[in-house]
Structures are given as structure tokens and as C-alpha cells.
């Protein structure tokens, strides 16, 4: 019986926790901090992974393998390129959609992600269509034995995760971040205070997208092979939403914790599959999906703020403080109430 405490297994587990945590942090910038209901995460995931694949792979050689470029560039370029591509994509999508009502924005983002997926499937010249891209190179591969490579990648993932986390935390505590939170709370009041709501939303949208692109690139280099199916709506979007909701949206620690908990549940049940009587095996994959679905509904019903809940606000919103004071002189002063 395979021991759960096998270091190799733990390393694989943590790598994916780290990658999903990056996605979750990106989504948190969108939804948790700014209130952008982005249901097209899978789109950024895919663009990130494909961009790094195209940038870092060697040019295609076989007759049956087609994709643009294959530029053989280093990992860092792939990573940054993935982020940039997603940032540009966010800019393009954002212009017509960010001013839409929340639910329409969600539907629009679903549509964008789905359209992108079909583009990747149908346009073979772009990224090899349904066959996908294989042989994505891994950074620092030559350094160690292939069987030990994952420890190196784990370190890489953790470094990137920490950088992203710190960058977001800095951003959120800054005046810029405060405006974002004000927008999430009450868009009309924020707008009345004179800030361009649209510009701020766009900045947050692009930032979150860049992060998701980086996550996509990290994922691509880890799994080495991607196809359009890799970015199906379940894993690409829904899964990450579950992580954020479970961990606590509006909270960077929550985003990371959610990734850990949900991925933990997923792999934990995976372990059960591998050690359960045959016959149940095929069905258990779907039982896991069922559990994840029930998990998010359950959390929303019982503890909608997630495990960690939103961060306590240490600073007050732009304009809201003075407004409250003039309206209710007898009301309690101080930090705004929670959702």
C-alpha cells in the first residue's frame, strides 16, 4: 500500500496546491477585492499555458504537429509572456464587458472562455488543435535526476507564489487597493467620490488576469503536455471558484488556504479511488465531482464567508467615512460593518 507520506507524493501535491493558489489569488483580485464576477478563468488559464508553450518549445518538426513559432525561449520569458498575453486579453475583453451588470459579466466571461477553447480546438495552426502541445520544456531540468526534478519545481512554484502573494498584499493595502474595496462594497458611492470606477476595475481585471496567466504557465511547464480539454470549465474555472469560496474570498490567506483544502479533498479522494475495489473506480471520479459541487453549495449555505472570511478592514473607504458621519451623528463611528 502506497504510503501517503511519500515525499515525492507530497511534493506533487504541494506543487499543484501552489499553482492553484496562484489562480485563486488572481481570482481573489477579481472577485474578492473588486467584485468582478469572472467565470471565464479557464480562458486565462488556457491562454497562459498555451502562450508559454509556444514561447518556450522548440519549433515543430513533425508533419502532424503544427503550431506558431516554437521559439525555444527560456522559462522566465514564457512566464512573463503568459502573463502579458493574459493582460492584453483582459484589456480587450474588459473594455466592452466590465461595465455590464454582474450576472451578464459572468455570462460574458463564460462565453469568452468557451469561445477561446473552441478557437484552440478548431484552429490547428495555432496550437495543434485537439492534439495539444506536448514536450513543454521544464526549467532547470538538466540539474538533477528526472525523478528528483519535482523538488526543484516545487521550490520554483513556492518562490513564484510568495512573490505573487506579497505583490497582491502590498497592492491591496495601498490607496489603490482601498479604492478597489470601496468599489466592491458600493459602486455608486465609490463613483460619486470622483474616482473612475471603470479604470480601477480594468486595472484589477488586468492584474488578476496576469496572475492567472502566470499560473497557467506554471501549470503548463509542470504537466508538460496540454490539450484544449485540460481547460474544460470544471477544472479551469469552477474548481478555482470552489477554492476561493471555501477558503474565504476577499482574503489572500483564504485564497491560498482554499487551494490547499480543496486540492487536499480532491487528492484525498483520489487516494481512496486507487485503493478501493474495482468497479467503483469509474464512478468514483464522478462521485468526487459530486462532492465538490455539494461542497460549494454547502459552504454557501452554512458559512458563505469561507473558512477565513474576509479580512477585517483596517482602513476606511474613500469618501464613505465622511458620508456616514454626516448622515448619523448618533450612529457608531469607526470601521464599516461586514457584508
Amino acid at each position: 500500500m502506497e504510503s501517503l507520506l511519500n515525499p515525492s507524493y507530497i511534493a506533487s501535491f504541494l506543487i499543484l496546491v501552489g499553482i492553484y493558489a496562484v489562480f485563486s489569488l488572481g481570482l481573489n483580485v477579481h472577485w474578492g477585492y473588486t467584485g468582478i464576477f469572472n467565470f471565464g478563468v479557464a480562458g486565462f488559464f488556457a491562454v497562459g499555458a498555451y502562450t508559454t508553450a509556444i514561447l518556450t518549445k522548440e519549433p515543430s518538426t513533425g508533419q502532424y504537429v503544427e503550431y506558431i513559432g516554437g521559439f525555444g525561449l527560456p522559462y522566465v520569458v514564457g512566464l512573463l509572456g503568459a502573463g502579458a498575453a493574459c493582460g492584453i486579453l483582459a484589456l480587450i475583453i474588459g473594455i466592452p464587458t466590465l461595465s455590464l451588470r454582474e450576472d451578464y459579466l459572468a455570462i460574458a466571461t463564460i462565453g469568452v472562455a468557451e469561445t477561446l477553447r473552441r478557437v484552440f480546438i478548431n484552429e490547428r495552426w495555432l496550437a495543434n488543435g485537439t492534439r495539444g502541445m506536448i514536450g513543454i520544456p521544464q526549467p532547470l531540468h538538466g540539474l538533477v535526476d528526472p525523478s528528483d526534478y519535482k523538488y526543484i519545481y516545487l521550490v520554483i512554484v513556492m518562490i513564484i507564489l510568495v512573490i505573487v502573494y506579497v505583490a497582491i498584499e502590498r497592492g491591496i493595502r495601498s490607496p489603490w487597493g482601498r479604492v478597489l474595496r470601496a468599489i466592491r462594497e458600493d459602486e455608486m458611492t465609490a463613483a460619486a467620490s470622483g474616482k473612475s470606477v471603470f479604470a480601477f476595475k480594468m486595472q484589477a481585471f488586468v492584474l488578476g488576469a496576469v496572475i492567472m496567466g502566470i499560473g497557467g504557465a506554471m501549470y503548463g511547464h509542470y504537466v508538460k503536455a496540454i490539450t484544449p480539454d485540460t481547460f474544460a470549465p470544471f477544472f479551469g474555472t469552477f474548481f478555482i471558484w470552489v477554492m476561493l469560496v471555501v477558503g474565504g474570498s476577499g482574503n489572500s490567506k483564504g485564497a491560498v488556504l482554499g487551494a490547499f483544502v480543496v486540492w487536499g479533498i480532491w487528492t484525498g479522494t483520489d487516494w481512496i479511488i486507487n485503493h478501493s475495489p474495482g468497479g467503483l473506480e469509474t464512478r468514483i471520479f464522478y462521485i468526487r465531482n459530486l462532492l465538490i459541487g455539494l461542497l460549494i453549495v454547502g459552504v454557501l449555505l452554512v458559512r458563505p464567508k469561507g473558512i477565513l472570511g474576509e479580512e477585517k478592514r483596517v482602513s476606511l473607504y474613500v469618501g464613505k467615512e465622511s458620508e456616514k458621519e454626516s448622515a448619523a451623528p448618533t450612529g457608531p463611528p469607526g470601521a464599516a460593518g461586514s457584508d
Partner: protein
Amino acid sequence: MIQLVVIGMIVGSVIALGAIGLTLVYGVVKFANFGHGDLMTSGAYIAFFALFGGGHIGPLSFGYGMILAILVAVIAVAVLAVAIDWLVYRPLRKRKAGLVILAISSLGMAMVVRSLVYIIWGPDQRFYVLGIQRARELPFGIMLKPDQMFIGGTALVVMVFVYLLLYRTRLGKAMRATSDNVELARISGIDTERIISWTWAIGGALAGLSGILLGIQSHLMPEMGFILLLPLFAAAILGGVGSPQGALVGAMIVGISQEVSTEWISPGYKPAVAFMLLFAILLVRPQGLFGAKT
């Protein structure tokens, strides 16, 4: 070309039934039910489960057992939809949850329903009846299978019933009133929770029927409803959320556009066509064709 338009109308009528159910619910509970496609799927599969006996009704591919299966499935999905509302959405409503929370929970329930279908029936394609039906030739060189005529006809009849329900019955008027202004409905003394439950039942029934017709038209797969989600939303929003006539018109536009688009682009892009239409209407006239400017 005419052939494509006609096929588009058949597809459109399947989408219409789903979209009408979606828009009725959307108008009354005010959130996007991302689980609607999976209600369609569950209808199709429950009918599959309840289908007994073979035979043929005239030139159709199925026998009277199918009619019974349709009735059973439609009622079952109606009950399922109401149950989900009572268990999930109503508690959230009581807590004054925002429409985003409700939408996310609907996505979760969509996953739950779909997973159950996968678990019970597995991922492989299923068919109500095996064998290929031959198309009949109609005027103008249109080729239609008798099943497709059945689909179009059934959809038409059902839509007439929906119209009668909404405009000639007390319940229907109360549904429209609640959709207009839920607070005012409550102020008038209407038990809006009961109206909401009935709306879910009707919306669910329409979704279930739509799924079955889709299954007759092609085949059953656990993803069948989810794949239609974008076209369903496109139709509902194009027509104006809350307006069943709008959903019908929107569905026809979506259905026909999707089929006609295959003249120029790959069929793999059909949902993308629906999305483009949706996008266009959101930019140009977000309240939809029949919607009122808020």
C-alpha cells in the same frame, strides 16, 4: 440554405423551450440559473430510464412508451427543480444573498445534477431508439425527419400552452406580476414564495421536455444540457430577460444563426456564434429585444 434555416428552426424550438423556462425563472427569482442546462439533461435521462416498450407511432422513431416516459420525466424534473429551490435557493433568499452567491450556488447544483447523471448512467452516449431515421422530402427541397417534425410540433403546442398559462390564468398573471415587481406583489398580498415554487416547477418542466426533445433529435450525453447553456442564455438575454416571447424570438435567432453559420465556419463554433449574438445585444441593447429599459 433554406434547409439550414429550417433545421435552425427545429434546433431553435428546442432552445426556445429551454430558454422560456430559463427566462421565466430568471424574471421571478432575479438570478442566472446556471443549472438550467443540467435540468434539461436530467429530463432526457429520466425519460430514458422510464422508456419501456418499442414500436412506432406512425413514422416516428418511438412508440407510445415514449409519451409516457415524457410525462414521467417532465413531472420528475419539475419536482426536482422545486426541491432544489426549497433546499438551496430559498434559504439563501431568506438570508438576502446577492445574485452572485445565488448564481454560484446554481453552478454548484449544476455540477451535482450532472455528476449524478454521470454516476447513474455513465459517460457514454445513449440513444432512445437505435437506428437511423430517413428524412422525408418536403416542398422547397427541405429534408426533415418525422422526429424533427414532431419536435417542432410539440414545441409549438407547448408554447401555446405556456402563453395561455401566462395570460389567461390567475397563476400566470401572478407570475408576471412577481417578475415585474416582487415587492409590490407581496404588498398586494400575493404569496410570492408559492409563485416562485410554481415558476420553478414550470421552468423545470419546460427544461425537462426540452432535454428530451434534444435527446430525440440527436443523442444523450451527460454534458448535453451544459453545452446548450450559452445558447440558452443568449436566447433569453437577446429576447429580454423575463419575456417568454422574447425567449422564443431569441431562440429562433440563435438556432437559425448557428445552423446558417456552418456555411462559412466550422460547426465547432456554433456556441461561439450564440455567444457573439449575446455579446452584440449586451453592447447595443442590454435589455434585450422585448425588455423594458430600466
